[in-house]
């Protein structure tokens, strides 16, 4: 169901859900949208107030006397109002019988939420003689109606719905219904309020400002509901609510905001980290720990404690990630596999096609590669009772294959290369052997050309799962090429002239080994180091349990 079309598509929208269930969407350029989860389209978040004033005059002969000010406001079919009209209409009554209202301001076509078709109404509010603290609902008309009358005396007004113009402590009340500003691209829900940040304005004064809604009124954001952080040469790019705190994310700093309920009165903001965040999508949370990505790499934050995470893979951070193209980078949690994934671009000129992947229980890194797919967004969803990571792969939503279902048409290429080991001196007792233990995989049928980044043909063939083990001597980038085509009867074959020893994973023993001692190679005496690279393509759960390399240290 297509809900809306944003005119600006350069910035991913952020979405937050209010306690009442409404969903709010911001992108920093188009007017924010709200959706009730049911209807066929979104509508504007917040209602723009009347810009003109009603005409009011007394008529007839009666008991109405006094000086008044009349305001109008729009209200939608959910009872959500706009602000009062800007200045109000002065009205003096002298023994009049009624008040005649005319030229009642009407919503523009750009405010369909309060159109007649959508059940919109217009309210007229009048104070009582001699006071300008409280206004009372004098009359309500349907949108489209431009005239109305009222015969209410002050006593009758006071029995009507009342609304203070300001709260008792001086904050806007009748004028608190200002719609959320368009310029903020980030929205989060925290402590019964919506919070807004990440301005797209070019005004330097705005980049340190966040705004917040009234409590339980996500569309009421008066200008006084703002906080401006100190100028530190940085800009706010995101908000991260964790527990009682709202963390304000800048590119290179993080501030912690605490409030006990009314941020205008009691908000405290302290700098907690000299690390930051690339954008609103570059953080995720595992239990009480936040995982973030900033321009210095990946790190974790717990409370105000910050710890670098990416030391083992610093070369990716410093040499390979394209930091000029981070608008679409994102960080996601895969709770099912206990992973946090940092989706980035290696190289340039493309979307995120790789994910630095961190196992947060084992503290292990790996790299995921999605070939020619751009993974520009991710999210977590409950699928079949399990929280699963969903990745946007170009124009499709995808999840990892569940081994219990028959989706075996996507072959994943993998590579695993160990470092160099020092060879022991050549000796007749010093056998050089590579051994590997694995879960056997029976041969299976697969579609020809099946890769997860390309369409497969409809014809299938029987595939025997293998791992190719390449041997590299003395730091060479060129793998050894076996001289013979042979089967060593220990689950390994070679092809003359083709690099690598091919391990057959259909071997039910779950074990294979081969000698690499260069017994046929006259240069063996000159070998000092050796490295091994395992690679293959698989669409089956492929598990390696142990590798042993004899004759090295």
């Amino acid at each position, binding site marked *: 169901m297509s809900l809306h079309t944003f005119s600006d598509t350069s910035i991913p929208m952020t979405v937050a859900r209010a306690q009442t269930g409404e969903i709010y969407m911001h992108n920093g350029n188009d007017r924010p949208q709200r959706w009730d989860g049911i209807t066929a389209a979104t509508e504007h978040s917040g209602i723009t107030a009347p810009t003109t004033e009603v005409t009011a005059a007394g008529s007839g002969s009666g008991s109405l006397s006094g000086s008044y000010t009349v305001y109008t406001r729009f209200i939608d079919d959910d009872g959500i109002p706009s602000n009062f009209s800007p200045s109000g209409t002065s009205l003096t009554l002298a023994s009049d019988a009624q008040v005649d209202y005319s030229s009642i301001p009407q919503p523009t076509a750009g405010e369909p939420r309060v159109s007649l078709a959508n059940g919109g109404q217009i309210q007229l509010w009048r104070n009582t003689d001699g006071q300008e603290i409280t206004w009372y609902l004098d009359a309500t008309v349907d949108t489209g109606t431009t005239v109305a009358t009222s015969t209410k005396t002050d006593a009758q007004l006071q029995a009507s719905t009342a609304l203070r113009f300001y709260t008792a402590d001086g904050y806007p009340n009748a004028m608190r219904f200002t719609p959320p500003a368009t310029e903020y691209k980030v929205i989060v829900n925290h402590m019964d309020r919506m919070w807004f940040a990440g301005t797209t304005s070019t005004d330097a004064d705005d980049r340190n400002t966040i705004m917040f809604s009234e409590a339980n009124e996500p569309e009421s954001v008066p200008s006084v509901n703002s906080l401006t952080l100190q100028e530190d040469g940085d800009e706010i790019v995101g908000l991260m609510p964790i527990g009682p705190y709202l963390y304000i994310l800048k590119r290179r700093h993080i501030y912690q905001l605490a409030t006990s309920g009314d941020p205008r009165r009691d908000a405290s903001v302290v700098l907690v980290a000299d690390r930051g965040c690339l954008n609103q999508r570059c953080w995720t949370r595992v239990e009480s720990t936040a995982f973030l990505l900033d321009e210095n790499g990946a790190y974790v934050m717990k409370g105000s404690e910050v710890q670098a995470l990416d030391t083992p893979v610093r070369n990716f951070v410093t040499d390979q990630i394209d930091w000029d193209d981070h608008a679409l980078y994102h960080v996601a949690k895969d709770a099912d596999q206990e992973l946090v994934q940092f989706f980035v671009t290696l190289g340039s000129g493309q979307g995120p096609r790789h994910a630095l992947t961190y196992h947060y229980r084992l503290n292990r890194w790996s790299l995921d590669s999605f070939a020619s797919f751009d993974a520009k967004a991710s999210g977590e969803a409950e699928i079949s009772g399990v929280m699963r990571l969903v990745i946007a792969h170009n124009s499709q939503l995808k999840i990892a294959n569940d081994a219990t279902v028959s989706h075996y048409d996507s072959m*994943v290429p993998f590579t695993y290369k160990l470092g160099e080991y020092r060879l022991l001196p050549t000796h007749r007792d010093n056998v050089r052997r590579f051994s590997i233990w694995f879960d056997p995989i029976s041969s299976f049928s697969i579609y020809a050309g099946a890769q997860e980044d390309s369409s497969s043909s409809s014809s299938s063939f029987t595939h025997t799962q293998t791992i190719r083990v390449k041997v590299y001597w003395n730091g060479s980038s060129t793998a050894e090429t076996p001289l013979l085509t042979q089967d060593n009867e220990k689950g390994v074959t070679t092809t003359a002239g083709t690099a690598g020893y091919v391990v057959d994973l259909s071997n039910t023993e779950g074990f294979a080994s081969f000698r690499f001692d260069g017994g046929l190679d006259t240069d063996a005496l000159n070998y000092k180091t050796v490295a091994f690279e395992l690679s293959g393509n698989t669409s089956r759960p492929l598990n390696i349990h142990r590798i042993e390399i004899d004759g090295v240290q």
Partner: protein
Amino acid sequence: MKPPLATVTISDFNGLVSNRGRFPETPSDALTQTNIRCLHKGGLSARKGLESVSFSTAVSYTDDLISIYFYDYSASTQYIVSEDANGIVDAETLA
């Protein structure tokens, strides 16, 4: 057969440790580890392939998806996505 003079055993796979150059700090450091993960101590597992999510109704998009937001509604999981070039915001239900 006599035992080898020395053996390197890799059973506690240490994950990708690419910052040290050619020589690992521990024997089980990997210089390259792409699409294969350490999902439990003592094992390597190839990354699972990806399959398309199933929807309650047929859905297809023409442009790259750049935003996803999931939420629970009426005992089902719904999602909202926005497309890149055409800016369309769409809401659907997972099967």
